[in-house]
């Protein structure tokens, strides 16, 4: 059998997903036996023009991580879509917008102002911002257009599979490679991970969920074996897909939802609000108001990794 052609690309990401692929350790040799890599900026020196010269659908699998934040990322996503038989939204940024989509509470001009003018490390008295085209003595320089709104990959191009996680856990990556190698890929549209919620999989002891106040992490030392939500810590477990390996929970840190909403749940934040409301032990409206105040940053917490695919999508422009 001819070797598969594999492309890996990063859009608005941090490289953590690329490193997660390397975290399969010696199994990377199995991947190398299975596939030849044709693009992987973090590790190999292929240029965009090399991919552009390839025939459509000549790449068997493309793992694309990072959100779509500027016009270059959108163009390359479209190019890789055309060249690839199977395109995978790899990691939480590509699946849901991820951490970069927290910028959807803001817009381009606010971000430029903060980064290029107000930041203490910026020396920019003339308030110059990056331009899509700049004339220099020798010719012209071009930069991509910075968008107001960060999008997930499937909001820009069609996507076959979703591998969530910040970053995707190694066992999930290997499971996907195994399904590919044995020709057992699930129906397009499948989100890899569990069909259950993180709560369903969590091994912590659960009792009656009734809380009368919300604690911030520095206000309480949680009991290691007990449900964090029952102890008043906001844990996104009820509103998050399982299958992550529970690294945060096992480190006594509440979930922040990087696996996105569970199957059948359209909006992670609304699901979390609903879960919180159902366990609030408030007797009257005053107590409810007090508890709502205790959630310091509701939107930035409930949509920590999912602004792009939320019903909100962004703050009104």
């Amino acid at each position, binding site marked *: 059998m001819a070797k598969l052609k594999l492309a890996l690309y990063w859009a608005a990401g941090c490289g953590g997903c690329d490193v997660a692929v390397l975290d399969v350790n010696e199994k990377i040799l199995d991947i190398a036996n299975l596939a030849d890599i044709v693009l992987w900026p*973090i590790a190999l*020196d292929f240029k965009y023009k090399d991919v552009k010269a390839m025939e459509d659908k000549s790449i068997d699998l493309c793992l694309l991580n990072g959100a779509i934040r500027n016009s*270059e990322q959108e163009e390359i996503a479209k190019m890789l879509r055309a060249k690839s038989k199977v395109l995978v939204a790899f990691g939480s940024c590509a699946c849901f917008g991820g951490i970069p989509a927290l910028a959807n509470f803001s817009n381009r001009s606010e971000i430029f102002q903060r980064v290029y003018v107000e930041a203490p490390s910026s020396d920019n008295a003339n308030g110059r911002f990056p331009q899509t085209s700049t004339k220099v003595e020798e010719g012209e320089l071009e*930069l991509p257009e910075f968008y107001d709104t960060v999008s997930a990959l499937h909001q820009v191009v069609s996507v076959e599979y979703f591998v969530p996680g910040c970053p995707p856990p190694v066992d999930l990556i290997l499971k996907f490679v195994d399904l590919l190698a044995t020709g057992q890929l699930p129906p397009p549209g499948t989100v890899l991970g569990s069909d259950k919620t993180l709560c369903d999989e969590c091994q912590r002891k659960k009792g009656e969920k009734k809380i009368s106040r919300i604690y911030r992490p520095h206000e309480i030392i949680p009991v290691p074996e007990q449900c964090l939500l029952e102890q008043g810590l906001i844990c996104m477990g009820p509103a998050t897909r399982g299958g992550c390996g529970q690294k945060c929970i096992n480190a006594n840190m509440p979930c922040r939802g990087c696996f996105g909403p569970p199957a059948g749940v359209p909006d992670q934040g609304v699901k979390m609000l609903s879960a919180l409301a159902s366990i609030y032990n408030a007797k009257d409206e005053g107590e409810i108001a007090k508890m709502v105040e205790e959630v310091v940053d509701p939107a930035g917490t409930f949509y920590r990794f999912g602004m792009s695919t939320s019903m909100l999508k962004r703050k009104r422009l």
Partner: protein
Amino acid sequence: MKKVTIDPITRLEGHGKIEIFLDDKGNVANAYLQIPELRGFEKFCEGRPVEEVPRIVPRICGV
């Protein structure tokens, strides 16, 4: 003026491209390093609870 474009720069964390302008003799007249990337952590960390920041900023670079 002839232009040589290296895009993307590879084997590092982040995005970059290099534009090299050559004069009539084929010598380098000037070269520009451009970073076609910004996410805006400086902005979107504002308003987040301070204890959450250690869970956000590791995503500046995950390499």
